[in-house]
């Protein structure tokens, strides 16, 4: 019962695992580049939740610090990714990732 009533580490971890899977699912299945980038954000946030949860339960500050940096990183990454996607759209007139496959094999 305690497992269900008290919010413990495992709940955080479960949430983060679900987030991770959702993120991966998005990256793997969605056509739209923007949505894929959102999936990536989900993955990073899953990691963030883990760090924070562990930080809380382990009693150290490192996890908090890392998650802060990861958030910043995610922002930077998003900026660059958007720039690239915009450029892609300029050239290919599409942000459908599955259609951009001129180089293969």
């Amino acid at each position: 019962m305690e497992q269900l009533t008290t919010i413990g580490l495992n709940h955080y971890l479960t949430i983060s695992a679900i987030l991770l899977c959702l993120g991966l699912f998005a990256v793997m299945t969605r056509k739209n580049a923007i949505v894929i980038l959102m999936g990536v954000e989900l993955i990073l946030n899953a990691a963030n939740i883990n760090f924070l949860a562990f930080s809380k339960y382990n009693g150290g500050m490192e996890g908090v610090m890392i998650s802060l940096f990861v958030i910043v990183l995610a922002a930077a990454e998003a900026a660059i990714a958007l720039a690239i996607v915009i450029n892609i759209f300029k050239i290919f007139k599409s942000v459908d990732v599955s259609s951009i496959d001129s180089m293969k094999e």
Partner: protein
Amino acid sequence: MHSLIQLSIVVLLLPLLSFVILIFFNRRLPRSGDFLGVGILGTAFALSAYIFWTVIVQTYDPAFRIAWDFTWIDLGKVPGVGPLQIKMGVVIDNLTAIMLAMVTLISLLVHLYSTGYMAGDKNYGRYFAFLGIFTFSMLGIVLSDNLFSIYIFWELVGLSSYLLIGFFFEKDSAADAQKKAFLANRVGDIGMWLGILILYSQFHTFSFVEINANLAAGKFALSNAWLTAAGILLFMGCVGKSAQFPLHIWLPDAMEGPTPVSALIHAATMVAAGVYFVARIFVMLTPDALHLIAFVGASTAFMAATIAITQNDIKRVLAYSTVSQLGYMVLGLGVGAYSAALFHLVTHAFFKACLFLGSGAIIHAMHHEQDMRWMGGLRKHMPWTFATFTLATLALAGLPLTSGFMSKDAILAGAIGFAKVEGGGIFYLIPVLGFFSAMLTAFYMGRQIWLVFFGESRTHLKPAEDHHGHDVHDAHHGAHDDHDCHEEHHGVHEVSWNMRAPLVILAALSVFFVYSPDPLDGAKGWFMKMIQTPETVVGEASLQKAAALRSGVAPLIAEAVLPPAGHAETDSHAAAAAPSHAAPAGVHTFADPRQAEIAHAAHAAHFPAIYISSIMVVLGISMAFIVYVFRIIDPEKTAISIRPLYLFSLNKWYWDEIYEATFIKGSIVLSKVFAWFDTNIVDGLVNGVAFTVKKFAFANGSFDKYVVDGLVNFTAFSVNTTGAVLRKLQTGKVQTYVVMLILAVFGYFVYYFTRLVY
């Protein structure tokens, strides 16, 4: 170094000198240098004659032997053997002296003869060069004191024979014949070589003396079967070179060479080298090996004789007669009639050389017509040739008062004695075949004499389209322009002196008194006295010793393997001194009981042999008369009535066809199979691997596709199907890559998770 040795080396090298000078400078010398060849050979003969005089006439000792050797190859201190040297050397004994004189004499005569016969040929100088190298090699065989140098000169003789048979190489038949001769000889040679190897592997020496000493001491560590095998294998060399069955096929074809060459090489000397070689190794031959040799000789003699009776080409008749006579010699050695066989070798050399040179004269006079059916009546036009040819024919047929009679009789007597000692039965086949062949010899020689010299000229009977002799002798045209203007038979006249003189000399050497005072008994002559059957080194005693050593505790290697050279003689002499068997007077005594018995029996069979063979010869000659002179039996009709037999003989027992169908076709087919295997399977496998590797990359494109056999096809197919699935992965779509990433991690995880659980 003994002065005779020095002389003999000079004799050996002189023809080589002739070869070297003539091969390089023949075009710059006057007359293409033929005088040089003749002169050098003359010198060689003079020196040989001196050696002959010193050894045979002056010394007159059956046991005469001087030897000299030098280290040719020094292998240093060989592990397991000790110091090891390959020596080359020269030995002079009575046989050598006789052979030296014989070879140089015939060679000289052939040189002389060739100045007439070959005049005008465009390669005239080269011809004499080749004769020189042949003589050199032949003398090398004669003088060698060890198996290795004999083998060397043996092959060189093969080379010179090759070169001379193919002298008219523009003719395809000549080119075929020379190749055939060389290859048939090679087959024999590998046997000989293996025999040498067996002996060498035991004693680490090639020297006759040392091998004999070791054998006599029973040091042969392998079983007796190996010893017999060694003997038979060595004999294979003789089978090749002396054209014994089943390698006789090359000799008749070798008649494509110039006729003097046939006389020198394919009648008198080279083919006799095989017999000479068997004589050299005679003492190492076990009874079993000797039996085989005897049977080979007898069957060769018979087979060749049956073929000779139907041949139409004058040289082919003589060629088969040569084969037949060589069979006699081999038979003689096989039955232990050592001196008789060698005697026949020498007598045959002279009369057969005479016959060939005579036939050469005829061919020369007939404008290179060789078919006896279109000859006839030459007796009147060519009296000298006729006389010498007839005399030699009589010697070949074995009529009394000729040299051939004595030697052939001695062989046949040996054969009878042998058959008796060996216990009769199948062994009587040998003398029977021998006598029967004697009859056939007389028959076909009678036929030849009649067809060629008697009757009327049949030149005009020759079918026109068959007149191809001229075409193939293009090379001679220039020389015979003067003859060609005489269209018909009138052109036939006696040959010039330089071709006649050899005939006369050789014919003179076919008469009995050269060899023995008693025309009925060669054994009374100097030859049989000088050449006596040597004591075997593989008799009962040494074989028992060997068996004891093999089974015994004595470690072989610890013993000194090589006793000092010369022991053999002392051993055998000591043994000979022991009067184990009472021998009749005039018969050499032997320690080995078998040899002694055969010698005894042969001596006893001397007169029966004379009677039987005389009867056979007379029978043969009368048959020839009946058929060809009196025409009581018409040869053509007979040929038709016994057509299968006739064809069998005419086609030489179909040996060529059999070999063609089996060995030659077989080799070529096999070579094609191997070549196919090489490009397709061996290479294909490698390419197949490469192909598979490439397929694995699931891409398409052209690759060096060679043969892909089923296996590779299957591999390629299966890899391909896998590739079809894998191809979806590398689509260029980044999401696929991510999926692969996740899958890889997941795969890893599953793998480790299962490892963890179990």
